[in-house]
């Protein structure tokens, strides 16, 4: 710790001074306890028992209580406690079951005062009465608690917990006669010191041992307990039944818990295993510790606040053989390191965002989001319960909702259900899918399918009329980008853009027929670029002025194309290198590139596609003779990537399945797998189990197709008692009857079982099949007309 600061606190005359410091002990410590004057601390362990004076700069060893040549087990301390009324009085609990008291006022070197050997097992805890000078309480592994009067030789009373070992005993600070004890089996008991026969109250506080408890120094009846189940719970014992008021979840079993003085809701904890830090929690904020001390290198075994009215000094002893004084000021605060914002997507595109209030308040002042017109913001303000953390603990939760209908995914469901992915020739599949897409008004997708058909199928099979028809229809509609999965489509500008598109489409539909047949490839490409231009469209849509210019470009483009293939390069000087397409000697190639270029520069490309389609019918023969389908694979690949990027992973996967081998090799396995998993995930969210299963089945990726093989177990309920049959499918655990009898042969079915979904009778698959060949009624005689399909 570099930033050591010195703190001085005045407490009713006496002054506490100190800094964060530590000193090395000779052996691991098991427990520590502070003297009433806050200037001395006693450290006890298996082979250490010393008193240290706490000075301003350091700990100074004051007294070694471990005297005698042969160390006795009586000195192997599990716990130590210093009397809060008498500075000379200490008590220790030994691992061999002995309780020892020590009187520092004795003149001899050996300060040992009394020895109580009444417990049969290790004593886990000793505790002095907070106000009474002579009363000592002990709790042991043997399940007994004993109360000693130090003026007598043996115990005054014995309390039997009637259960396993006692882990902690604590006198109530407020109620003179009450003490609490915690047990290995998770119980907490409340006793009256005058009534050893039975406990006043008992309740189960934790799952597993309760290692520690501590009464609140001010609030009567508040008891904090810590257990092996990694929880700290605060109980209100004043009510009729102990009520759990707070629960703090830590990361390791809780060995000690101590309320912080002067801070009503704070408590310090340390753990028994694995975790070496000391945490100070605000019980109202149970997820992030208020402060953390990280000095120790091994588990902390004892913690004590130095002064009952000073919240800034904490002492601790550890298995790493060090004694530490921690200053609250030097503690690290995990809150500062925590991420104060959270973001989460809902199933239907809703977006929730939580952040510090101050942050959001500043933001909402100036109309935060461009998209908020469609996504109304709801502020849900939580009332802040934690006053000291007013600035930190209050946060705002904003929910951005998608417009009903705007984010509707019905097209997705319809598409998924109607697409044909396999089982027919490629051409038919493409046609079918194109039709499906068109019916849903997704023309771009429809055209992509048509295009695919053209690319990959021999054109002879395609009736040109059909094609013309499809294209004609396509060009008459605009280009609404309905397929975009994200929330950003349909920006305000899009409307005008669509209009623009359509008007051009109309005008150009005349010129289209004039174009040379060679533009086929161009179109192919245009389709591609047009998609990738979407962002550009958004921008351009607003700028009305450009519209004309763009428009002008186009006729130029068409005219220039007419003479020869070479033209594009002259008409559109290349402004940058083309990297996308593979170089080739043919003219065609160059031509194919040019729209690409123009597209990325301006809007031309996006205007082109619709209209030029009508050419296809004329031109396909040409293309067929010249280009192998492989030629397009890069384009198709880019197209798939484009769709996937846009969020329409459905398209990507569908095409991947339909086109199959022809394109698969161009896309790396991982991407494919990613697409598949995303699509399957989506399908399952929409509960399209059949479709998702089909996709899994048709996928070629191994990782995907094995999805089908996992968790194929079907759990059944017993037909008699309606309880789930856990272990075997044919015998019920509870009613001990064979549940699944064959209705035909009346034997237990242990193999394939077939049920009628109507009357739930059934039996051996073979038997039922045979039965239903001859009869249409249920073999059980219930009168149901069963069907077997």
């Amino acid at each position, binding site marked *: 710790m570099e930033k050591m600061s010195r703190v001085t606190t005045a407490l009713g005359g006496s002054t506490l001074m100190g800094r964060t410091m530590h000193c090395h002990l000779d052996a691991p410590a098991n427990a520590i306890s502070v003297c009433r004057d806050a200037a001395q601390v006693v450290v006890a362990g298996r082979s250490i028992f010393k008193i240290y004076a706490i000075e301003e700069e350091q700990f100074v060893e004051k007294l070694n209580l471990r005297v005698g040549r042969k160390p006795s087990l009586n000195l192997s301390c599990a716990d130590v406690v210093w009397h809060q009324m008498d500075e000379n009085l200490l008590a220790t609990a030994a691992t061999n079951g002995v309780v020892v008291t020590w009187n520092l006022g004795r003149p001899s070197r050996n300060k040992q005062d009394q020895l109580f050997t009444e417990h049969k097992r290790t004593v886990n805890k000793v505790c002095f009465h907070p106000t009474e000078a002579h009363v000592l309480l002990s709790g042991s592994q043997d399940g007994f608690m004993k109360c000693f009067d130090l003026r007598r030789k043996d115990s005054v009373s014995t309390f039997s917990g009637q259960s396993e070992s006692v882990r902690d005993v604590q006198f109530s600070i407020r109620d003179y006669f009450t003490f609490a004890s915690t047990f290995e089996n998770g119980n907490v008991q409340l006793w009256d010191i005058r009534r050893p026969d039975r406990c006043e109250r008992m309740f189960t506080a934790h799952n597993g041992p309760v290692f520690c408890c501590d009464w609140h120094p001010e609030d009567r009846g508040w008891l904090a307990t810590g257990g092996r189940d990694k929880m700290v719970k605060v109980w209100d014992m004043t009510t009729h039944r102990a009520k759990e008021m707070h629960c703090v979840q830590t990361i*390791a*079993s809780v060995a000690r818990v101590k309320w912080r003085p002067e801070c009503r809701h704070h408590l310090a904890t340390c753990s028994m295993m*694995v975790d070496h830090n000391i945490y100070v929690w605000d019980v109202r904020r149970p997820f992030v510790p208020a402060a953390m001390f990280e000095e120790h290198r091994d588990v902390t075994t004892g913690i004590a606040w130095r002064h009952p009215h000073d919240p800034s000094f904490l002492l601790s002893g550890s298995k790493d053989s060090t004694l530490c004084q921690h200053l609250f000021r030097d503690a690290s605060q995990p809150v500062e390191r925590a991420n104060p914002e959270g973001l989460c997507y809902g199933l239907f595109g809703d977006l929730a965002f939580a952040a510090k209030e101050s942050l959001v308040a500043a933001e909402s002042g100036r109309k935060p989001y461009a998209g908020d017109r469609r996504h109304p913001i709801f502020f849900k303000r939580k009332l802040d319960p934690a006053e000291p953390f007013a600035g930190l603990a209050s946060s705002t939760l904003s929910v951005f909702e998608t417009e009903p209908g705007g984010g509707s995914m019905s097209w997705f469901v319809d598409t998924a259900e109607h697409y044909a992915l396999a089982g027919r020739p490629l051409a038919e599949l493409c046609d079918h899918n194109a039709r499906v897409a068109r019916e849903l008004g997704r023309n771009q997708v429809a055209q992509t399918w048509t295009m695919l058909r053209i690319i990959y199928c021999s054109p002879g099979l395609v009736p040109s009329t059909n094609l013309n028809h499809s294209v004609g229809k396509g060009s008459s509609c605009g280009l609404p980008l309905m397929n975009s999965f994200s929330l950003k489509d349909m920006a305000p500008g899009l409307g005008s853009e669509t209009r623009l598109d359509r008007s051009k489409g109309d005008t150009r539909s005349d010129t289209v027929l004039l174009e040379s047949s060679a533009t086929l490839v161009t179109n192919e490409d245009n389709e591609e670029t047009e998609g990738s231009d979407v962002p550009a469209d958004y921008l351009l849509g607003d700028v009305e002025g450009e519209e004309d210019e763009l428009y002008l470009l186009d006729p130029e483009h068409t005219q220039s194309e007419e003479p020869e293939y070479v033209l594009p390069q002259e008409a559109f000087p290349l402004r940058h290198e083309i990297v996308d397409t593979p170089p080739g000697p043919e003219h065609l190639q160059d031509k194919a590139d040019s729209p690409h270029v123009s597209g990325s520069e301006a809007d031309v490309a996006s205007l082109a596609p619709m209209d030029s389609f009508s050419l296809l019918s004329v031109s396909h023969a040409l293309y067929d003779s010249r280009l192998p389908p492989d030629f397009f694979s890069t384009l198709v690949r880019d197209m798939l990537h484009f769709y996937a990027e846009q969020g329409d992973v459905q398209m990507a996967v569908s095409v991947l399945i339909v086109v199959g081998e022809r394109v698969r090799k161009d896309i790396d396995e991982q991407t494919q797998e990613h697409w598949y998993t995303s699509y399957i995930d989506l399908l399952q969210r929409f509960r399209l189990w059949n479709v998702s299963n089909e996709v899994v089945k048709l996928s070629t990726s191994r990782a995907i197709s094995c999805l089908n093989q996992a968790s194929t177990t079907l759990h059944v309920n017993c037909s008699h008692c309606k309880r789930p049959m856990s272990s075997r499918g044919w015998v019920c655990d509870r009613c001990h009857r064979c549940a699944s009898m064959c209705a035909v042969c009346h034997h237990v079915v242990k193999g394939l079982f077939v049920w009628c979904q109507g009357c739930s009778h059934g039996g051996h698959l073979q038997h039922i099949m045979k039965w239903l060949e001859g009869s249409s009624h249920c073999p059980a005689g219930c009168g149901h007309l069963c069907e077997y399909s």
Partner: protein
Amino acid sequence: MHALFADSFAALGRLDNITLVMVFHPQYLESFLKTQHYLLQMDGPLPLHYRHYIGIMAAARHQCSYLVNLHVNDFLHVGGDPKWLNGLENAPQKLQNLGELNKVLAHRPWLITKEHIEGLLKAEEHSWSLAELVHAVVLLTHYHSLASFTFGCGISPEIHCDGGHTFRPPSVSNYCICDITNGNHGMDEMQVNSAGNISVSDSFFEVEALMEKMKQLQECRDEEEASQEEMASRFEIEKRESMFVFSSDDEEVTPARDVSRHFEDTSYGYKDFSRHGMHVPTFRVQDYCWEDHGYSLVNRLYPDVGQLIDEKFHIAYNLTYNTMAMHKDVDTSMLRRAIWNYIHCMFGIRYDDYDYGEINQLLDRSFKVYIKTVVCTPEKVTKRMYDSFWRQFKHSEKVHVNLLLIEARMQAELLYALRAITRYMT
């Protein structure tokens, strides 16, 4: 009981003889099966075939061909590579690394240091993760102690298994499961079988004497308190004596062929803690115990298993029917504690709050021989040993003793291994 059988059958697809013997104590069996099922079949850091292979490794340390064969089948069933079965050197490096830990854990767990752990966790591409290691350690200890049980109760292979229908060499205990399961009420038969020189009255007094001693101890405990030095020395004495306790008939064991290939070092066996561990400090339970420390560590690294094992220990430790041989309403807690602590004593684990003088009073020599052999060198257990201790007691009680033995052994091994892991982590 039938439900238990059914559960076991459903989980394993078989009803092995271990289950058939343990069903004397259904409460324990349930917990045992649940734990074993979780360890072998449920979610865990290790792949299924690794788990069975580790089981084979552990059982082979004690030349327990019964368990080995059982798990060889399971190993192949879950798709393990048959090549691995030709010996540890054919298994992946990662498993080979585990061999050393297996060896030490089985025979001299007190020698485990954090260097062992470090060696496993930091072996570049062959390294284990902490969670995997805890899983492996739990499996190893489980199968070490299960091997003890197999020999201790003389469990023979199932009839359909290899060797199940033939006579085994005497090393694999040659008394049949049927003896035990049927023989619970057939005490007379036992008497005939065991050496004829023991008269019934003799053994009757044995029980009486034991009960008398327990009573005495209970009463005089408060009166006469031994001095601290004496208490300390009693532990040492018991520890030292445990070293001389050894079976007189040291039959040479010829390990079955199929088992021996899993060994790399047959010479490494149990060495007495006291003789060879002079400089190994005594393990103090008060400093590292299962309830506080071991549980937390296991549950952190391999969730739920800590809970299951904890339950199993509890049931085994607290199991009692308040009967002793023909006597009813006896508080046997003292005897059970003596057995438990005696086993821990053999592993050098000491309870500060226990008077080790009690052990000497309660456990007679033949019983100590049996305990020691079962726990430390189970492969040397013979039917004679089984018969010659506690002659008046029922078979179910002897099985009960065995449960105590295996759980105490498992806890001892776990404590050493987990302490090493904890030391590594801090």
